[in-house]
């Protein structure tokens, strides 16, 4: 599992959690995020593509990335 590592203790802000190995790097979530807090990683996942990842702390938990993602399990939205 390459779920994004949790912050120490409980998360206090909403955030997207990625199953990075299932991401196909289509970039739909990156383009759709209204807060511009997603990007394609610079490293490769086990599929050999650059998975989307969360940067920063701006996530509002709107789940827009979730609905734009064509994959069922790449993105889940966690909220405190």
């Amino acid at each position, binding site marked *: 599992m390459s779920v994004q590592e949790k912050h120490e203790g409980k998360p206090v802000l909403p955030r997207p959690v990625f*199953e990075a190995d299932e991401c196909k790097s*289509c970039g739909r979530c990156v383009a759709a995020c209204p807060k511009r807090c997603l990007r394609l990683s610079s490293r490769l996942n086990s599929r050999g593509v650059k998975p989307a990842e969360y940067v920063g702390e701006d996530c509002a938990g709107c789940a827009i990335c979730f*609905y734009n993602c064509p994959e*069922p*399990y790449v993105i*889940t939205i966690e*909220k405190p």
Partner: protein
Amino acid sequence: MTQKKTVGMYESFTRSGRPSRATHYCAGCGHGIIHKLIAEAMVELGLQDRTIIVNPIGCGVFGYYYWDCGNVGAAHGRAPAIGTAINRMRRDAVVISYQGDGDLGAIGFNNTFQAASRGEHMAVFFVNNAIYGMTGGQMAPTTLEGMKTTTSPFGRDPLTAGYPLHVCEVLNQLKAPVYIERVSVADTKRIMQARRAVHRALEIQRDGKGYAFVEFISPCPTNMGLDSVKAALFCMAEMEKEYPLGCVRDRSATALARAPHAPAPSVEAFFQQSEQHQAPAEEVDASFKEQRLKFTGYGGQGILSLGICVAEAARLEKRFTTWFPSYGPEQRGGSAACSVVISGRPVGSPAVDHPDVLVCMNQPSYERFAHDVRPGGTVIVDATVPLMEKAPEGVRVISMPAIDLSLKLGVPQAANTMMLAALAQLEVTGLKREHLLEALDASFRKKPALIEKNRLLFNEAVAWMEKNL
């Protein structure tokens, strides 16, 4: 706490051996987005246990590996027919047909059109990406004018390839559909509109209100030759020019829920309804010699009726019997034949290749079938047939003026009754004359005036035979 995650789909997909958490779709494909919307609506409306999704041929073929509900795979384009069948058999089921533009708009368009016209209770989700994805990017009915595909390398030319097919608008000509909407999954706003449309279509199924059709404009980055984001932009900039988004029809507020299901009649009740009067059941009788009869002539001479009459007499006599017709497409004048088997045990095959008794009412049938008669058998042939062919060895040939006699007696349609009399007089059926007469009467049950007349003709024919044979 997880706030948003995929529901209504299997935890992992075991499509090709190793379980996977990813679909088989290319990066950026619209199918996955639509799959999630359908699964979500199905769960949110509490329909998961009642839903049966009919999967197409095309990229969407593997839906049954993903959706956690009932799934069926249909032959190419036939999802509406399968959906109809499920609909008729399982009225509690929520039927979803999931199809692409090749499946729904090309090979299966008539299925789609007729199911919509019948107002079948199903939600049809139509994924329009303007191209054949699975087979490698060929031109589809929905391909845009001028759009390059592998089979339209210079762009789709309407002069030779026609115009893009507007399925929503075509279906909107029909009376029955309750809901028709075209949506897109190209950006967030559009996906949310698509989400509402999916919910609406499934609510209509939940409430049993009828046919709902949702078309999705969906990107195919691979075959459009664009990256995921640009393919989505192409959907918005180009495809929406040809296929405007929006609700074409929504009659869900006024559509009536379907009536409760009346139980199907039992087989027994069905037969009791039929006009066949009750006859005693067959009895096994090893001593009865099986009789195989063939009746042949032109259509319109009463060949098939004569066979039915003999079979009915056998039924009255508690014999096992079959009646097996064979005739050309012509209602009158073509060749007609039927085979009747009368037996003391259950009949294995109703086909008669080598009859014991052959009745011929015209020349071609005599020439065709006379040589098939078993040695010791009988051929009754109408006197109008010239016996150019020699009858086979050991076969008795009786020339009977059935047509002339019936003409002379003023009932030209009754030549077959004359032949029935000949069968009775020659005692070749193994049946009693009283049963043959009772069956003759029964065949005119709807025209009682003819019963006496046919009895009279029957007796005239018997008299002729007594005098001349």
